């Protein structure tokens, strides 16, 4: 993550035509090569916020700047060369008859040669583990498969900034993990800036640089995931919870008085923490005895 701000979001408020005030008082900077997550309960405004950041909704009060330029003054072309958004509902995103045609639509519009297009499409389909489905009709996919194709459609274009609305929703557990891993790699290796909205407290936060909690249209907390997930009560106020692993350790620590030094978020960390703490209880030599790592 570098210190250059790519997306500067200052939204005083945004109302839908039916007067629902979906977001308000947002002050959010997305830095270059940042991997940011937005966590929030249903109806908290995640989708709305992402759509505003993607330039799809313009009648908000405030401003959004993309690389310093007012997003409302940029043409769709200028925005979409840099920014890509994966919609929450795949049916809003897929439009071509077949998988191959859908995924190749972006690269074709970018003016690539046929071979390059085919190469990109194949690569993107491989990334989402759908290589064998190129010829299948879009309508004939399962929900999770559609979701994957949506993501492939953007991957094939190679955006610098990816906005993803619940990219892991509807994916199977292994797919979820692989998807996050893929995004992380894109972020680390290719320097793609990633912003994703999610409900997935258990898995997603582990991959993020920064986590923002959205509640009733406003950001109520932000920072590295370990700092954001503190007490369960805080979380349940905004209809969220701690990751299960964190909650287990939290309860062991606070209700059962086992003296954990910190609240881990991942299984690996939790293992280490438990071994260390149990070792402490038993005496310093214990972990070695059990060969724990």
């Amino acid at each position: 993550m570098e210190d250059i701000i790519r997306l500067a979001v200052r939204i005083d408020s945004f109302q839908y035509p039916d007067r629902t005030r979906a977001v308000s008082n947002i002050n959010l900077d997305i830095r270059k090569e940042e991997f940011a997550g937005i966590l929030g309960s249903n109806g908290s405004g995640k989708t709305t916020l992402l759509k505003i950041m993607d330039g799809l909704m313009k009648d908000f009060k405030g401003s959004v700047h993309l690389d310093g330029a007012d997003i409302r003054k940029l043409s769709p072309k200028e925005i979409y060369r840099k920014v890509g958004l994966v919609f929450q509902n795949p049916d809003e995103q897929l439009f071509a008859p077949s998988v191959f045609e859908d995924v190749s639509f972006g690269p074709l519009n970018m003016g690539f040669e046929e071979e390059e297009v085919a190469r990109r499409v194949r690569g993107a389909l491989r990334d989402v583990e759908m290589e064998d489905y190129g010829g299948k009709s879009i309508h004939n996919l399962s929900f999770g498969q559609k979701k994957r194709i949506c993501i492939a459609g953007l991957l094939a274009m190679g955006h610098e900034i990816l906005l993803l609305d619940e990219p892991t929703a509807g994916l199977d557990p292994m797919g979820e993990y692989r998807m996050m891993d893929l995004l992380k790699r894109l972020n680390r290796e290719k320097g793609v800036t990633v912003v994703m909205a999610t409900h997935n407290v258990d898995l997603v936060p582990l991959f993020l640089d920064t986590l923002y909690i959205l509640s009733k249209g406003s950001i109520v907390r932000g920072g590295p995931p370990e700092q954001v997930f503190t007490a369960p009560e805080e979380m349940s106020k905004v209809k969220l919870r701690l990751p299960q692993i964190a909650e287990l350790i939290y309860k062991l620590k606070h209700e059962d008085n086992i003296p954990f030094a910190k609240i881990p978020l991942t299984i690996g960390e939790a293992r280490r923490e438990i071994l260390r703490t149990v070792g402490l209880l038993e005496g310093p030599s214990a972990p070695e005895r059990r060969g724990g790592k």
Partner: protein
Amino acid sequence: MNVRKVLAPTLLAAGCSLLTVSDAHAMHISEGILPYGWAAFWFLASAPFVAYGLRRLGQASEGDLSFKPLVGLLTAAVFIISCMPIPVPVAGTASHPCGTGISAILLGPAISVLVAAAALFIQALFLSHGGLSTLGANIFSMGVMGSFTGFVVFRLLRRFKVSLAAAALIAGILADWATYVTTSFELAAGIRGDAPLLPLFLKIMVAFIPTQLPLGILEGMMTAGMISLLHRKRPDLLVKMRLIEPEESVPCN
């Protein structure tokens, strides 16, 4: 909800009849009926309208990326609407509405000609409904005559402060009837051989009256239903199509 009451029987009838294929569609002229002279003539007659439509399409879609998809959508709608054979008990035959009324009202007559042309082309090629050689004639009757009649009637009525739904109803009816009169004429001219034109034209027209009279009314109701539904639920669309003024759009919930 009045729209529902109108739409329900209309479409139910249409839907049911989609299943019972007992069709002798009268509205499109079938492949091969017209002698080549007439076929070519109707192509020439509709060409300028198509060209004009293309120019309007270019203008309208400039800066509005959603315009062509919308035109495509209405084409699909016209395709489907004009595929619904509706049995007409009196005549023992079936016919179908044409749907150009609604597309003309929403998109204007010029682009509506394109809509009809595209829908007719797909039907001709994949359903043997209408035909490639008779495409020109069908574009002229359904696209040109239907669209322009529908549009002019609608705008005129609106000028006289007739309500949206009523204007759409009458525009839909007249668009349908205009199409049918033109089709009858084309058919008569095409098949008459050396028989006199006028009597044959009148005979064909009279033969189709029992079918087409109620169908036109059905189509009018469909058009009215769709327009008032859009008025209630998507006034923004009607404003965009310049059917109503922004202040006429009731806030939807």
